[in-house]
């Protein structure tokens, strides 16, 4: 048993949902109790997807456990096929259904469905979300591509004269950190080299598209956490090599392009002149970035890439590097050695918090969890990896990969920091009452970092006076207004972020009516008056 406050990854069936939801023409019948339907909101609320995830939950209850939960599963699978008409059906169990051992795969087989059924065995008590996504994608690729396997010993036919080299782009999924925008950037990179994208998967792919994966010459693996397993199977089965560099940052993007050019047998084109990070980093304003202490934590791909960008492209000092992806601990350990830090491999949010507290970095690059830690500790932070939050799906194009990805990284990691000259002034005039290290950044206006009660400093107030609760003393309209003790107490129960407005409105209301002392009744009369 493990004590968890927050978790970095959901259960493996949520990983399966991320694949099913990313694809078209796939439906997932999940044997699960009713509460497990919460997972839908990850997609509809956090990612703002306009469609329900293609998932049917059997939602069995305690009273079904004595009866026939297997029949319930079969009925749900039959209904889902009739209603949603998928081209491929995924079937599996969540943690609770795994315990009752109904064998969704075996049950689905008995239904005699006319579409391919892919049973998913995702051990909920051992594995987690990314593993579930990877396994699901791999099983779908195997199921769809196996009928098209080349006979053993056959060699790939040479490319037709004048035809462009073709690649697949593997890994982008639903609920991924900036996957939508990364796909656009990577497509731009490979197309600039005269390479055609055969299939992008799982994002936007149908089972029929997956069946065409073998037609490409090689695979571009964007996120090894999700596509690594499928890519190695494709390499073994179709002789397709795949990329090993994730193009996050300037150096990695250059390495990625070189790798792709070599795999496709094409010349490396000139660098895109939209790339601004190198000059921005060299310009004198960036001098103050030198040696900023940065702590990095996230999934392995993003954490390792961030460490390289931080050290080599922004001139930061990496003081911590870690991941929650145990499957990729080796890669993170190697990177940590390169940066001369102890790797932190853990799923325990509290351990990450302790590590951050211990090294006192000036910038944290992490997940939403580290953003929360950094906020509490008053440290600047930028998000670089899933788990994600609604803010990680910005309306604008905001990739991490490729040329524009590098530009986005420069902005989003540098802007949370205190800017150059401001930093000097802060250290010069430490004791200044308005301008001290607890102060907000100057562009946010004067004040403490902790938000004040809004409005309370705006309206000068008379001292509260005790007032009989039932009588409202009258005075001249427009005259000064005082707060009765009970009204003042009542006001404090209103949430702080609207309290200032409530205070101003009540005072205006009282003033207009010549009420000298605000009582609880006045407060609510005013609330009713302004309520529209």
């Amino acid at each position, binding site marked *: 048993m493990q004590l968890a406050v*927050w978790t970095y990854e959901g259960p493996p069936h949520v990983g399966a949902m991320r694949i099913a939801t990313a694809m078209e023409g796939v439906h997932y019948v999940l044997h699960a109790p009713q509460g497990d339907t919460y997972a839908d909101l990850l997609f509809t609320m956090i990612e703002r*997807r306009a469609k329900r995830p293609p998932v049917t939950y059997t939602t069995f209850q305690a009273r079904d456990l004595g009866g026939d939960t297997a029949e319930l599963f079969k009925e749900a699978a039959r209904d889902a096929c009739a209603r949603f008409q998928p081209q491929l059906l995924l079937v599996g169990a969540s943690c609770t259904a795994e315990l009752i051992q109904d064998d969704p795969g075996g049950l689905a087989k008995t239904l005699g469905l006319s579409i391919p059924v892919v049973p998913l065995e995702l051990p909920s008590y051992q594995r987690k979300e990314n593993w579930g996504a990877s396994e699901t994608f791999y099983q779908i690729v195997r199921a769809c591509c196996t009928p098209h396997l080349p006979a053993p010993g056959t060699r790939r036919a040479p490319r037709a004269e004048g035809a462009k080299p073709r690649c697949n782009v593997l890994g982008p999924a639903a609920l991924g950190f900036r996957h939508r925008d990364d796909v656009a950037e990577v497509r731009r990179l490979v197309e600039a080299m005269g390479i055609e994208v055969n299939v992008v998967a799982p994002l936007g792919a149908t089972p029929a598209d997956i069946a065409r994966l073998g037609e490409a010459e090689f695979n571009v693996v964007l996120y090894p956490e999700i596509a690594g397993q499928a890519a190695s199977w494709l390499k073994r089965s179709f002789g397709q090599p795949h990329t090993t560099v994730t193009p996050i940052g300037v150096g990695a993007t250059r390495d990625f392009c070189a790798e792709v050019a070599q795999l496709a047998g094409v010349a490396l084109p000139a660098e895109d002149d939209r790339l601004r990070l190198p000059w921005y980093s060299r310009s004198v304003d960036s001098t103050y970035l030198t040696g900023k202490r940065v702590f990095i934590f996230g999934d392995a791909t993003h954490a390792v890439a961030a460490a390289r960008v931080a050290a080599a492209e922004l001139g930061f000092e990496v003081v911590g590097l870690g991941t929650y992806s145990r499957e990729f601990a080796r890669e993170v350990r190697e990177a940590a050695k390169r940066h001369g830090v102890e790797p932190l491999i853990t799923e325990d949010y509290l351990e990450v918090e302790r590590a951050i507290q211990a090294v006192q970095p000036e910038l944290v690059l992490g997940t939403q969890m580290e953003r929360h830690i950094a906020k509490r500790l008053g440290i600047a932070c930028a998000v670089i990896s899933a788990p994600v939050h609604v803010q990680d799906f910005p309306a604008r194009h905001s990739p991490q990969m490729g040329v524009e990805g590098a530009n986005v990284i420069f902005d989003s990691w540098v802007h949370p920091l205190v800017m150059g000259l401001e930093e000097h002034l802060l250290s010069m005039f430490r004791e200044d009452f308005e301008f001290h290290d607890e102060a907000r950044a100057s562009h946010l206006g004067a004040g403490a970092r902790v938000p004040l009660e809004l409005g309370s400093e705006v309206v000068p107030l008379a001292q509260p006076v005790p007032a009989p609760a039932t009588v409202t003393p009258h005075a001249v309209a427009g005259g000064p207004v005082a707060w009765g003790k009970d009204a003042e107490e009542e006001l404090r129960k209103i949430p702080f972020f609207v309290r200032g407005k409530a205070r101003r409105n009540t005072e205006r209301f009282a003033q207009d009516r010549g009420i000298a002392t605000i009582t609880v009744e006045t407060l609510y009369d005013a609330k009713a008056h302004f309520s529209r």
Partner: protein
Amino acid sequence: MSAAAAAPPCAAPAERPVLRERGQHEVFCGLTGIVWLHRKIQDAFFLVVGSRTCAHLLQSAAGVMIFAEPRFATAIIDERDLAGLADCNAELDRVVTQLVERRPDIKLLFLVGSCPSEVIKLDLSRAAQRLSRQLAPAVRVLNYSGSGIETTFTQGEDACLASLVPEMPAEPGTARSLLVVGALAEVVEDQFQRLFAALGVGPVRFLPGRRAADLPPVGTGTRFLLAQPFLGDTARALESRGATRIAAPFPLGAEGTTRWLAAAAAVWGTSPEKLRAATAGGEARARQAMAPHRERLAGQSVFFFPDSQLEIPLARFLSRELGMRLVEVGTPYLHRAHMAEELALLPEGTFLSEGQHVDRQLDRCRAAKPDMTVCGLGLANPLEAEGMTTKWSIELVFTPIQGYDQAADLAGLFARPLVRRARLEV
């Protein structure tokens, strides 16, 4: 209105027809209640004994709305625990010890059962007794189930409060007291305190209290009013301690609040004049504040997907006080006895459904094209994308909506999506 409220509620209607559905339930499980209960009982800690899914649910349900230092956590069962149950209990003791060491401020610890802990038949009540003995007197340990195979969403609060009832001290004697049951915002509790004082009803106590140690006494003199419509088990537990339920509609809207107060006033023998004097001001204020919302909402049709069991009282409020038309009122569970006064107030022929088959219900909703659909977070954006106006139901659980001075806020929650839709030109 006041006169109507003073009169007894309408005669019980003939058994209303209800469509009972069985299929995919698109609802939260009872664990979700922890999200508000841990804020309400401020020195309590909720430890879910469950799977990674439970932890992820709490984080996702909470993460959409709040992201503060939590007073809840999950003891995640892993494959080693599944190997043998004796081991599981030892593991739980270890996790609890670790937790209590880290959080010495905890006075009351709830072990919360989940789907997996129930399926493997982990006996949390025995574990709670054992741990209570070990940790006494610093920490009291109780248990309840928030599992999705046993509970739907707000039933988690019911199970939690029911687990507190045996802990309530006995009230000696038969002197009358009022117990208001169900988690309410503090500002609402204070308003009700003042109203009951004006009615001459008292002493008044609340369950749950703000601190774990503040458990109100209960005995044969206790009369209780439910402030929330989903407290069937808690009511039964209180009745078994000798308390008597005061039947009433729920305090939503001006009418609901007056009828709710009037039900208590009747037990205390408050005169009609005194009742009117105490409630007329608040009621008039509520109506005045609701008037602009009523202009927007009157005549609009509304469709409820099942969620919190608040649907029937809300539907009554929307139809009687704001003039909305009820297309379908879905509820996860219909407690006929506790809902009798509400059902009597619903318009004749209101379409009620209990349980859910989400796909069939979506078909009905699309066919009916209501002006407003009240639904959970999983359905809201997809329905908006289809051109429907929605109100997420979870906000109705997390917002102070009871009582006179919140009636307009409640109306505003329904008006806002329509106002927004009218404003947007994109």
